[in-house]
C-alpha cells in the first residue's frame, strides 16, 4: 500500500513553490517591470484589447471579400498586398504582406516552421494549432496529409504550394470564391471567409442550409 504521507518522490511539490507556474511568473515579472518604469499597465491593456476586440480574421475577410467583388482591387492586392490592405483603412500598413491566389489548379498553404510568423494585422494573433509542433513539422513534408486530416483533401491534379514564412514578409491566402454566391454583397461574402481559409488549410464555403 502506498504511504500518502511520503513525499520523497515529490521533492519540489507545487505547494512548496508559491512562485512556480507561468501565471505567477508573469504576474511577478509584470509587477517588476511596472515598478522599474519599463512598462505602462495601460499600454498593456491596450495591446491586449487590440487583438481581443479590434484586430482579427474579420479584417482579412474584408480584404478577401473586396477582392472577390472588385477585379481592379484584386490586381492591386496581388501586386502589393500591404498597400492594397491599407486602402481599406486596416492596420496592415507597415506589415509586408504577399497575397497568394488560389485557383482551381493551384492551392496555397502557409506555415512558419522556425517559429510562428503570422500576418497579425489581417488575421490577429495565431491559433494554437498554427504554432504547434505537429503543424510546423508536417506542413512542409506532408502538406496533403495535413489537409486530408483537416477535412480538406485536394485532388492529385491540383498543385499545392507551401509557403514557409522565414522572413519579415507575411502571407495571406486569397481563397476561391465559392459557387452559389453570385449577387452577394461584400458584407455577406466576408462572413463566409474563415481564418483557416486565409491560412490555406480550408476553403471558403457556403454554409450548409444557407438561405441566402
Amino acid at each position, binding site marked *: 500500500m502506498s504511504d500518502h504521507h511520503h513525499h520523497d518522490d515529490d521533492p519540489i511539490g507545487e505547494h512548496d513553490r508559491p512562485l512556480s507556474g507561468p501565471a505567477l511568473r*508573469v504576474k511577478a515579472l509584470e509587477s517588476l517591470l511596472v515598478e522599474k518604469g519599463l512598462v505602462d499597465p495601460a499600454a498593456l491593456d491596450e495591446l491586449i484589447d487590440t487583438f481581443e476586440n479590434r484586430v482579427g480574421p474579420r479584417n482579412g475577410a474584408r480584404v478577401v471579400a473586396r477582392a472577390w467583388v472588385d477585379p481592379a482591387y484584386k490586381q492591386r492586392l496581388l501586386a502589393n498586398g500591404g498597400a492594397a490592405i491599407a486602402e481599406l483603412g486596416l492596420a496592415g500598413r507597415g506589415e509586408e504582406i504577399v497575397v497568394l491566389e488560389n485557383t482551381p489548379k493551384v492551392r496555397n498553404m502557409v506555415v512558419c516552421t522556425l517559429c510562428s510568423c503570422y500576418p497579425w494585422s489581417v488575421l490577429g494573433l495565431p491559433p494554437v494549432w498554427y504554432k504547434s509542433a505537429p503543424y510546423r513539422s508536417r506542413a512542409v513534408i506532408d502538406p496533403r496529409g495535413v489537409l486530408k486530416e483537416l477535412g480538406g483533401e485536394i485532388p492529385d491534379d491540383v498543385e499545392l504550394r507551401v509557403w514557409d514564412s*522565414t522572413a519579415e514578409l507575411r502571407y495571406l491566402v486569397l481563397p476561391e470564391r465559392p459557387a452559389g454566391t453570385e449577387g452577394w454583397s461584400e458584407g455577406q461574402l466576408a462572413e463566409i471567409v474563415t481564418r483557416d481559409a486565409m491560412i490555406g488549410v480550408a476553403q471558403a464555403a457556403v454554409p450548409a442550409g444557407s438561405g441566402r
Partner: protein
Amino acid sequence: MNGVHDMGGMHGMGPVVIEMDEPVFHSEWEARAYAITVAAAFHRKWNIDMSRYSRERMPPARYLAASYYERWLFGLETLLVEQGLVTATELETGCAEARSGGTRALGVPGVAAFLRDRLKARLDDDVPPKFKPGDRVVARNIHPVGHTRLPRYARGRRGVIDRDHGVFTFADTNAMSRDKKPQHLYSVRFAARELWGPDASARDSVFVLLWDDHLEPA
C-alpha cells in the same frame, strides 16, 4: 543553430488539432505575457531577430514541452537580463533594486504605431541583387551555431528564384551582432521531390524566403 525549433520535416509530433471557437488568449497570464513582451521591446534594447534567437535557446526538452507563451516568457526573461534592463537578482526576487533610468515606457497613444512598425525590415540601401527570378540556386549547406533563418530541410537543396522582394535586413547577422547587412530577399521555390525524395508529389513545392547570403548559383 540546429535546434528543435527548426521543425520542418520532423516526424512523431502527432496530429494537427484545430480548436473550435478558440479564444485569442487561453488565460489571463497569456495575455499579460504577450503584452509585456511587446511593450518591453519598445525600449529597442533588442530587435525581432534577437527576440527569436532568445526563444530558440530554450533547452530543447523544455522547448518541446512548453506552450507558445511559455517560450515567449523564457525569451523575455533572457533578454531583459542579457540587455541589462533587469538584473538577475531582480528577476529572482521580483523586487526592483532601482527604477530604470533609460527610455520612456510605451504609452497608450504609441501602441498602434509600435505594433505597425516593429517588424519593419525593408531597407532603402541601394544593393544590387545577386540573383534574378528564374535563376537556379542552391541553398548553402551551413550549420551556424547562432541564429539563422535558413531551415535545415532546405540546406544543400536546389531551387529556383521565384521573386525578388527587394533589400531587407539580414536576420542571421541582425540577431547575433545587430548588423543589418542589407541584401536582397527572395522567395525560392524548391520542388517537393528535391526536398523530400521520390515519394513526394511531383506537382508540389515549398517556397522559402532566403537572402543572398543563403544562396549560391547552381
